């Protein structure tokens, strides 16, 4: 078995300031990895570098493509990378407005990725859209409503449906539960867990919420000042943290 994603020495600088430095890890099929750290720790920069939204100054991001096996996405042509972004990859933004087209219906939002890869049968596109709305617990009769008319939690679920409809293998999530209230978060997390298992997805989740990673992530990477300070099994890192910063992070969480 080959890793789905091999990250080697990814470094990104903003002038003199370090975004993220020399980050390396392997992500295996079906694995969910959490990246935690405080604001400015470099976790979002790293995610952007991995997802192709930023080009790192150094390093390799090798993805096991369906057609050609492991390839460095950073040296891929832009069309190939964007195609990957529409098919095998998905990106769930913290703010659903960044990931949705607010001006078109829920059905069109879900259908867009299908049409982008060549679907040209309206009835089938719509059928799949309705099916996916159901899977993210949005009623079928909302298919023609625009996301503007949806609550925050519904918008986030719609964004997930829109991303997963093409059956991606790797999902990047940036604070997926960030803007939601606690009860809605729980529902979303439950949904994500189910989808991850059913679809055999691999995922990289950036968050500062340790409760989120405990529920969703198999593995954890802790970042500080642009560097990875600790990695390991999620529950091991949280229950037996080895690095001083992780110990501080874990002990800083308010208990309820």
């Amino acid at each position, binding site marked *: 078995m080959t890793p789905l994603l091999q990250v080697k020495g990814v470094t990104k600088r903003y002038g003199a300031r370090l975004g993220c430095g020399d980050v390396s890890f392997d992500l295996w099929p079906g694995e969910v990895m959490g990246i935690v750290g405080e604001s400015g720790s470099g976790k979002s920069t790293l995610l952007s570098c991995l997802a192709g939204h930023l080009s790192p100054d150094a390093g390799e991001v090798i993805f096991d493509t369906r057609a050609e096996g492991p390839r460095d996405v950073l040296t891929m042509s832009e069309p190939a990378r964007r195609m990957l972004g529409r098919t095998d990859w998905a990106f769930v933004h913290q703010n659903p407005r960044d990931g949705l087209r607010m001006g078109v219906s829920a059905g069109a939002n879900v259908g867009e990725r299908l049409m982008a890869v060549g679907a040209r049968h309206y009835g089938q596109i719509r059928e799949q859209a309705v099916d996916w709305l159901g899977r993210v617990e949005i009623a079928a009769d909302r298919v023609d409503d625009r996301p503007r008319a949806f609550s925050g939690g519904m918008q986030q679920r719609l964004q997930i449906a829109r991303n997963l409809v093409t059956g991606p293998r790797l999902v990047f999530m940036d604070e997926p539960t960030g803007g939601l209230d606690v009860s809605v978060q729980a529902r979303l*997390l439950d949904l994500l867990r189910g989808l991850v298992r059913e679809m055999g997805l691999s995922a990289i989740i950036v968050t500062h919420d340790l409760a989120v990673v405990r529920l969703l992530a*198999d593995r954890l990477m802790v970042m500080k000042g642009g560097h990875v300070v600790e990695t390991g099994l999620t529950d091991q890192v949280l*229950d*037996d943290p*080895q690095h*001083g910063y992780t110990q501080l992070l874990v*002990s800083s969480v308010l208990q309820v």
Partner: protein
Amino acid sequence: MIELSDVSKSFVLHNQGDAVIPVMAGAALSVAPGECVALVGNSGAGKSTLMRMIYGNYLAGGGAIRVGDVDVARAEPREILRMRREVLGYVSQFLRVVPRVPTLDVVAEPVLAAGGSHAEAEARARDLLARLNVPERLWTLSPTTFSGGEQQRVNIARGFAHLFPAMLLDEPTASLDATNRAVVLALIAEAKARGAAIVGIFHDAEARAQVCDREVDVSGFAPAQAA
């Protein structure tokens, strides 16, 4: 099935003057298939720490922890995860679940995770919840709102759902009434009978005597105290 040799552990508190607290040294343990070993020792002797190290929840400081073909002290996270899915079950004292997930799904999940079918998982979950006397009207509700005893029984049902070849049991009979305690002891006996290697912590001496083949005193693994 479970082999520990020369296992050590110390905690380093980086935010408290880098204090180093050695908690275990030279721990050794061997559990064969079909055998149940009880960890005993005073409170604080390290029974839970040892159990957590076997599960990979605490990082072993040194030595080897073999569960099946995996050395937990050295394995990659994904190897430990596979071990937890397929080989080593863990019944902790507390139920930790995603809010909103129905009890039936909570119990069925380990079977699905190990590759079982939905039908198989649900049948197993129903059977265990019924045996542990969790009222059927609660099965579609999330266990987060249940009483302590009910949560503990859901936790046990979840732990025994998949037929693990090795199991860790942390106080499985605590806070159970006599009827349910008997059910749990029967479940343990059945697991042994099908060849599971079991390590457990039982404060309940009677239960310990009933299901455990031998006892290992964890106090013997205390690190030599520096003068």
